[in-house]
């Protein structure tokens, strides 16, 4: 019998008197002896032998990671638990647990031993993929789409810049511009194709234009950053796109790159340097906050809403930006910012990171509720009317989660959309001019 199969057998004597004291029934309840120390190191060694996953073996099971793990909040998870499963003979490579981690890095924040799931998971997943082990089909679809069309949504490359027709302002394409620009704006796949993402992209275009920023986009030359695909284990796909993107970025003269999404920020700022790309990249919140003085007079229309803000893991914990999004929200007249219990460094993950964006159905089978639903409920419990986000994965995730948890009354808006509403007035923003 494996250790996992052992059940704790409870022994309880009906009648016991010790030194004249009656301890009958539950007073003398004890567990029968069982093996708790016998384990096999093979599975732990097998994981730790994979390049990048070495720190898995550092765990000394203090379990600080478990209560901060967003997956454990809605299920049964956490690095310490994965370590324990491995001790009892579970092969992580063939277990559904391999696909549940969102690489949100909250465990790493508290881990005294620096067991780094952000590196362990991609490394082990890559081996599982290469060895032909089970990979959630919906994730494979996202890989396949990215490989074939350059974006995980499977949309045609030639429509990558179709959204600009809805922006109400000219959005210059760097290739057509034929001159250097100050800012290269990397729009991203979801803002380019997803209907709600497009709303944020249009808002950004209007804000940049209103601020007089000299910007351009890559248009049809832009392809996915593939960072989440890397974290989900498809390093080859990531490298293929990184090579393409770096070559494309370097074709043009620009001073700084602004990205709409935190995952793109992470890719271009932290990972692409390994492939020879070392140019300045900032998230749009960090960028816009520099223009706060010019921005404030443009925010003419009050947005009288109670708003709470969700820290994206890859903007906050991974890249240390907590204040810029809040400063932008606080600059909007009439807006009241309230915090959720879990915020900033301890922000709760939306479930979209590390490939979770494309494993919702799979993850739902192994958790009590989706991480996005848990977070949507937290947002609703603050009494907020709007959940503000700063990651293109999140608008659709949280809008769905608000519906499925009965919180449709809470709107979900990107900070870009809120700024745009304040700039143009609610009515104009909700009924954009037909283009």
């Amino acid at each position: 019998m494996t250790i996992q199969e052992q059940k704790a057998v409870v022994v309880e004597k009906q009648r016991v008197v010790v030194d004249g004291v009656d301890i009958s029934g539950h007073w003398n309840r004890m567990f029968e002896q069982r093996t708790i120390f016998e384990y096999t190191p093979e599975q732990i060694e097998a994981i730790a032998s994979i390049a990048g996953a070495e720190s898995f073996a550092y765990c000394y099971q203090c379990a600080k990671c478990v209560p901060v793990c967003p997956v454990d909040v809605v299920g049964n998870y956490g690095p310490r638990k994965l370590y324990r499963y491995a001790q009892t003979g579970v092969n992580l490579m063939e277990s559904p647990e391999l696909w549940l981690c969102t690489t949100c890095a909250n465990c790493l924040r508290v881990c005294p031993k620096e067991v780094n799931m952000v590196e362990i998971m991609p490394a082990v997943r890559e081996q599982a993929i290469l060895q032909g082990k089970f990979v959630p089909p919906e994730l494979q679809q996202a890989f396949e789409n990215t490989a074939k069309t350059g974006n995980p949504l499977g949309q045609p490359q030639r429509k990558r810049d179709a959204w600009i027709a809805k922006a109400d302002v000219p959005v210059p394409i760097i290739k057509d511009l034929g001159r250097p620009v100050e800012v290269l704006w990397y729009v991203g796949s979801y803002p380019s194709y997803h209907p709600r993402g497009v709303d944020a992209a249009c808002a950004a275009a209007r804000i940049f234009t209103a601020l007089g920023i000299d910007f351009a986009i890559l248009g049809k030359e832009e392809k996915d950053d593939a960072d989440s695909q890397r974290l989900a284990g498809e390093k080859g796909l990531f490298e293929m796109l990184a090579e393409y993107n770096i070559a494309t970025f370097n074709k043009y003269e620009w001073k700084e790159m602004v990205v709409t999404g935190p995952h793109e920020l992470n890719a271009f700022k932290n990972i692409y340097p390994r492939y020879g790309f070392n140019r300045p990249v900032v998230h749009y919140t960090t960028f816009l906050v520099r223009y706060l003085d010019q921005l404030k007079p443009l925010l003419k229309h009050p947005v009288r809403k109670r708003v709470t803000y969700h820290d994206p893991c890859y903007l906050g914990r991974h890249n240390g930006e907590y204040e810029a999004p809040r400063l932008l929200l606080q600059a909007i007249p009439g807006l009241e910012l309230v915090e959720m219990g879990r915020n900033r460094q301890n922000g709760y993950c939306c479930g979209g990171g590390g490939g979770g964006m494309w494993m919702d159905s799979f993850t739902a089978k192994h958790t009590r509720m989706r991480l996005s639903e848990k977070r949507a409920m937290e947002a609703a419990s603050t009494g907020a009317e709007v959940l503000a986000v700063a990651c293109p994965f999140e608008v659709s995730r949280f809008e769905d989660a608000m519906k499925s948890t009965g919180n449709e009354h809470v709107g979900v808006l990107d900070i870009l959309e809120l700024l745009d509403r304040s700039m143009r007035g609610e009515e104009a923003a909700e009924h954009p001019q037909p283009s």
Partner: protein
Amino acid sequence: MNIVVVLKHIPSVADELPVRGNQVDFDSVDFVLNEWDEQSLEQAALIKEALGGTVTAIGVDVIGELDNLLHLALAKGADRAVKIAADDAGADSHRQAKWLSEAIRPMAPDLVLVGVQASNDIDGQLGPLLAAYLDLPYIGVVSSIEVQDGTALMNKEFAGGFGARYSVRLPFVAGVQVAPKPPRYAPVSKIRQIAQTAKIEVLEPSGEADSGLVFRKVAPPVVSGHAEMIEGSPKEIAARLVALLKERGLA
């Protein structure tokens, strides 16, 4: 089992097709694997998994980028990769079939699988022509090929939703409509690993064939009609729909 799978590299229809002179401007389009060839490749891999044997992936290298497809085929389970270096982006089914037949004949295959058609010419002729050159039987529009004792059992689709089950003695050429399972995903990590070490056999095109067709004019289709977008409230839209259906005698 000695299985040969034919891969066709064709212009991507996800892009707009630019026309130059009387031909597609092949320099301005991306080339992709014909989608039906993905099905025949999957079918070949499944037969190999069931019975053992070897899968040889072969194709005409029309633009000098076939290696990528051959690496993909190797990552999906092919054992051997062969390209016919033609550098002829406009090579039609007749010419490709002739070259392929010359290359495949010495391989003495038990089974040759081709995609039933390709979205560039949609003439579905590569399979029949190849079979004719190889002097082998051809069966097209098939799915779920199972091989047993020198005979293959498979489904064949006919128009109008009809289907039939065929039993054909090996060897033969089959035009695959669909594999019994969706094509497997080959991780790019694996493809890139394979690309480092894979050996691709290179053959020169051998033999001549001509479809006899001459392009007189190639032009994008002219948009002749427009869809009517019904606008308004759900009630107004419903009323308009009902009126339209009545008007056309459909309700």
